[in-house]
């Protein structure tokens, strides 16, 4: 059994490592995403709202009286996380506001402002604009967070790595097996002594190897580039990524079990990956989301993987602390594997 499994494992690895476009994508994609987001959400660059500033074309309006006391406006301009963008003409600025390219538009000369009624961010900026920075806030006192804060990039990193594992597992197995079935490679293999479970095992091991290898390279690269810490042990991180990867490879095998249409498989894979990308807290937290959204999110293997990885990296959790994630991923893997192997067919009907 192992000779045949090893043979297919080797062949599949050759295929992956020689396919420059696929290989490049697996390495470059997470680097780019992390670099891009760490730049965008860097403390110095973190912009939550965009406010346009336009100076009135009509000099008659800019009289001493109308310019009057601009303290309020000047205080507002000192607000952090708001980017102020100057526009030459009112028409240009209005166009940007109409298309939600900016959230708020202000003309300090004429002491007018514009806000889109349909824009939630515009509503928030308007409230900020109205608020007096020197107003009393009762008995509340500003405090700082004790201990080291989790930087955004450190919070983001496990999510991006998990997402990369998801794409690599689902498309790397699901899509490839469907392509094999479509072009007859599976049919040819089916007339050799190779058994389905040997073939599937080889696919799983090969993809696991690829996932762990690429994750390791990207992990080391990101640590060097972005200098972040992993509070937990690396072994635990390997365990959660392995289990998460295995679970999603198994899910990929379910998708690939019968179809011989790449278009159909692509559709199904997108149907699986897109909700996972948005509901597994890759980019943003689901705190405050509707309870059923949060419950549904727990059913997704990517959520469990990212949750576990974040607990290890950001909070230094051990295996016991992430037992819930480990159990969930193990159960999901078993269900997917069982389904995948039961449904598997060598060739198209």
């Amino acid at each position: 059994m192992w000779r045949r499994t090893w043979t297919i494992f080797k062949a599949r690895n050759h295929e992956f490592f020689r396919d420059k476009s696929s290989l490049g994508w697996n390495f470059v994609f997470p680097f780019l995403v992390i670099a891009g987001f760490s730049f965008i959400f860097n403390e110095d660059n973190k912009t939550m709202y965009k406010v346009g500033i336009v100076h009135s074309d009509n000099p008659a309006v800019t009289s001493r009286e109308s310019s009057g006391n601009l303290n309020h406006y000047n205080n507002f301009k000192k607000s952090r996380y708001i980017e102020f963008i100057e526009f030459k003409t009112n028409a240009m600025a209005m166009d940007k506001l109409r298309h939600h390219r900016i959230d708020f538009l202000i003309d300090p000369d004429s002491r007018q402002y514009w806000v889109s009624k349909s824009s939630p961010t515009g509503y928030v900026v308007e409230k900020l604009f109205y608020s007096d920075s020197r107003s009393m806030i009762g008995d509340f006192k500003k405090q700082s967070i004790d201990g080291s804060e989790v930087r955004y990039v450190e919070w983001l990193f496990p999510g991006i790595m998990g997402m990369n594992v998801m794409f690599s597992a689902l498309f790397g197995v699901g899509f490839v097996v469907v392509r094999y079935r479509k072009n007859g490679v599976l049919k040819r293999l089916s007339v050799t002594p190779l058994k389905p479970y040997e073939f599937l095992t080889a696919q799983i091991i090969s993809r696991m190897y690829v996932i762990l290898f690429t994750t390791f390279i990207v992990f080391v690269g990101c640590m060097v580039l972005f200098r972040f810490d992993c509070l937990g042990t690396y072994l635990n991180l390997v365990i959660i990524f392995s289990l998460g990867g295995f679970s999603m490879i198994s899910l990929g095998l379910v998708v690939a079990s019968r179809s011989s249409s790449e278009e159909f498989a692509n559709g199904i894979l997108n149907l699986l990956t897109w909700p996972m990308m948005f509901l597994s807290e890759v980019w943003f937290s689901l705190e405050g989301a509707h309870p059923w959204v949060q419950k549904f999110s727990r059913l997704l293997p990517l959520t469990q993987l990212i949750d576990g990885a974040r607990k290890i990296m950001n909070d230094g959790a051990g295996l016991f602390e992430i037992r819930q994630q480990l159990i969930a991923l193990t159960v999901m893997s078993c269900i997917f594997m069982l389904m995948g192997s039961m449904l598997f067919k060598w060739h198209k009907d």
Partner: protein
Amino acid sequence: MHTPILDVKNLVKWYPEVKAVDDISFSIEQGICFGLLGPNGAGKTTTIEVIEGIMPAGSGTILYKGKSRGTVFHEEVGIQLQDTELPMFLTVKETLETYRNLYRRKANLDDLIETCHLNEILHQDNRHISGGQKQRLLLAMALANDPDLIFLDEPTTGLDPQARRYLWNIVDLIKSKKRTLILTTHYMEEAQILCDRIAIMDYGKIITTGSPTELLEEHCKGATLNLQSNISNKILDKLPWKWFRVRDRIEIQTDEINTCIKILLEQDIDLSTMTVRSQNLEDLFLKLTGKQLRT
């Protein structure tokens, strides 16, 4: 009496609404090249794919060396499928090694490379080899386990005449090593050259079986006259021999060539473009089915 290497009895295979294989039986002795002939859609590929185990039979029995096909069957047969792609990003040598390693019994790699003339392309990526080279590699893959029984499903379809002859030479070489081959083709010339026995199929049935020589002696003793087509059916119907319109020509199959020419001359038919040749398997197929083979 020797047990045939393959014994097929009352094989039936249904597709939805179509009986692709209709109760066929044949057996193949060890060491021969057996040809399954027929036009596209005759049921040749379905028949051998059922035997190969790719699809299940509707009914009937298939015995390999006198026993039901099991693990041994997959270990001891070599198969070249009609439509298959090669694994991508592997070289020819790696592909061969991959397939060799799937079997317990392995053919000698150097012999395999030499037999199938793969030396020149050994380190080329599968994606960059020609159609003829691909067929030779597929053949080498079928021989990777030094098989006792080899299935070749239309191995020369789509190849140019030179590449086809190149492949025939390889098949001849395999035959000389006393291996048993099952070959499907719709090229009668190929069957006549390579096969020791043939079975002609049409509409899922075997119409006739025998060696090419036996079949020709039995059914095609005479010659085929090939004429231009502007002769009326009325005249042709008066002839006591079978005639067919083949593309833009008329073919008359006769065993009394002088008489036939005499009758045609009496009818004032222009024989200046007439050709005469001995009958072959193509004529036999035409006679048995009333239609051309390559349709």
